[in-house]
């Protein structure tokens, strides 16, 4: 506090007011951001190091960003000082300056692209409401799920330590979670657009309209692949194969369909056992859809 004594009185009181405003914790902030050209579908990009992202389709032409940001900067396990602020017996912070950075979630618009980002120190829960046709680019690293509901634009999601859950979406999707489950329900499929749903440690569970035309590439290294689509097995694409792993491997690659009617009748599913990738077409084939996980199961469901 030696510094503040050296400061003129005016500056001191300003700091005090600032400090008081700050001490009132971090309420949910809401900003409404218009696209510069609302006649064209825009893009929303959200990148968070720590926190969760929720995107919902709304009826407005603008984008609403609601955030709860906590600038604790000490990680989830050491939240002591922040919690203390909220308790009644918390030590007073009156007359003191806060030296940590203000809670920072930035929202910017440029050329029909709205970018929401947070600094490394901030843990933020971000809820965004967008027009349904908006394209999304979502990146999360720690501490939260990524949820998307009702959006029809193209969706590009990556989450490192958390799940990805897409419901009722209509655009082409590419989703990758390193340590988390990927769940997606598509109400429609963009014609001719390839998609990819992948995880390293987690299940990949995708529900498609029953009439979806696609070339599927399905793989789980340590789990199984399940579907209730009528998958027509196809040959893997040609490659410069090594002679010694030719036929033997391909035999093992072949889809084994276990159509045991008694065992799986209630589920209406049959089981595909994989050693490696399963290639197949549904409804006559179409763009490539890749579903892959290392530790987990892969589900391709036909919407009822």
């Amino acid at each position, binding site marked *: 506090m030696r510094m503040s004594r050296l400061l003129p009185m005016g500056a001191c009181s300003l700091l005090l007011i600032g400090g008081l405003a700050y001490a009132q914790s971090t309420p949910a902030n809401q900003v409404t951001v218009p696209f510069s050209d609302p006649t064209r579908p825009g893009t929303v990009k959200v990148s968070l190091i720590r926190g969760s992202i929720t995107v919902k389709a709304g009826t407005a032409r603008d984008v609403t960003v609601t955030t709860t940001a906590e600038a604790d900067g000490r990680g989830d396990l050491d939240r002591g000082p922040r919690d203390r602020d909220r308790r009644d017996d918390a030590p007073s912070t009156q007359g003191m300056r806060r030296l940590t950075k203000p809670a920072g979630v930035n929202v910017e618009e440029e050329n029909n692209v709205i970018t929401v980002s947070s600094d490394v120190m901030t843990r933020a829960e971000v809820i965004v409401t967008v027009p349904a046709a908006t394209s999304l680019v979502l990146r999360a690293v720690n501490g939260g799920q990524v949820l998307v509901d009702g959006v029809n634009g193209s969706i*590009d999601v990556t989450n490192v330590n958390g799940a990805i859950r897409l419901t009722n979406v209509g655009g082409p999707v590419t989703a*990758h979670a390193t340590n988390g489950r990927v769940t997606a329900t598509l109400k429609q499929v963009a014609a*001719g657009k*390839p998609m990819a749903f*992948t995880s*390293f440690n987690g299940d990949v569970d995708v529900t498609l309209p029953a009439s979806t035309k696609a070339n599927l590439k399905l793989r789980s290294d340590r789990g199984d692949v399940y579907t209730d689509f009528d998958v027509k097995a196809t040959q893997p694409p040609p490659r*410069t194969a*090594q002679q010694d792993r030719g036929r033997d491997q391909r035999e093992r690659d072949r889809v084994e369909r276990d159509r045991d009617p008694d065992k799986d009748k209630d589920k209406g599913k049959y089981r595909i056992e994989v050693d490696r990738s399963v290639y197949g077409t549904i409804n006559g084939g179409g763009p490539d859809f890749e579903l*892959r996980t290392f530790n987990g199961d892969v589900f391709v469901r036909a919407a009822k």
Partner: protein
Amino acid sequence: MRCEEVRDHLASCVDCRAERNELDALWGALGDLPLAETPSSRMRERFSAMLAAERASTNLRPASRGDRRDMWTPRRMVREPLVQAALAASLLLVGVLVGRTSLGTTNGSSQSASAVADITEVRQELRDMRQMLTLSLLQQQSATERLRGVSWTSQIDQPGNEVVSALLDTLLHDPNVNVRLAAIDALRRVSDRSDVRAGTRRVVGDTSAPLLQVAAIDFLVETRDPDGPALLRALVDDRRTDEAVRGRAQWGLERLAS
């Protein structure tokens, strides 16, 4: 050449049908290429100014070869709306030519060699155009379009150097893991190339994307890469490597040893 004739022929000839489907796909791809933004008046002014300046300078010196090459790389070209239109127009011509020549060959066996040459030429043009479109897709902002670019490469019979290096670039630098994953898969059919092998070896150590590491390990094992054992050994010994990736590397080592 009447409509029904073409239709009848298409119904009976597998080759032509495949050709037509490919053309359809190309048309679709052309239509989906994002349009250039409508120029603002300021942009127009700037352009006029640039044009005036350029005119003044070209009066003094002819454009150097380097300049011209810079302006007309295939990747840039396909982004120009005018070039896109030209591509579309030439595609139509190709379509008509294909239709005609393939109809011609089935009509009689006494066709001259020139018809065959025509077809070859047309096929070559198609292939070049497909390559160009693929390259343009691989440069797109949207991950879906880049994914589409990667899956398009599988339709090119013998991908040229430019396509292979674009795929390698995607494998090493694309921000989207799924696009990179598709790229390594697409590169499996040109795994005999040394640059492709070198690129994959670099991916093996990329701890930011364990799923990709696993795909790269598989690639090493599949191609029996001579450097494979050493790289996999290093992965197994590196404590920073993901547990499951180390397990896969161990598996790879055993496979390569057998």
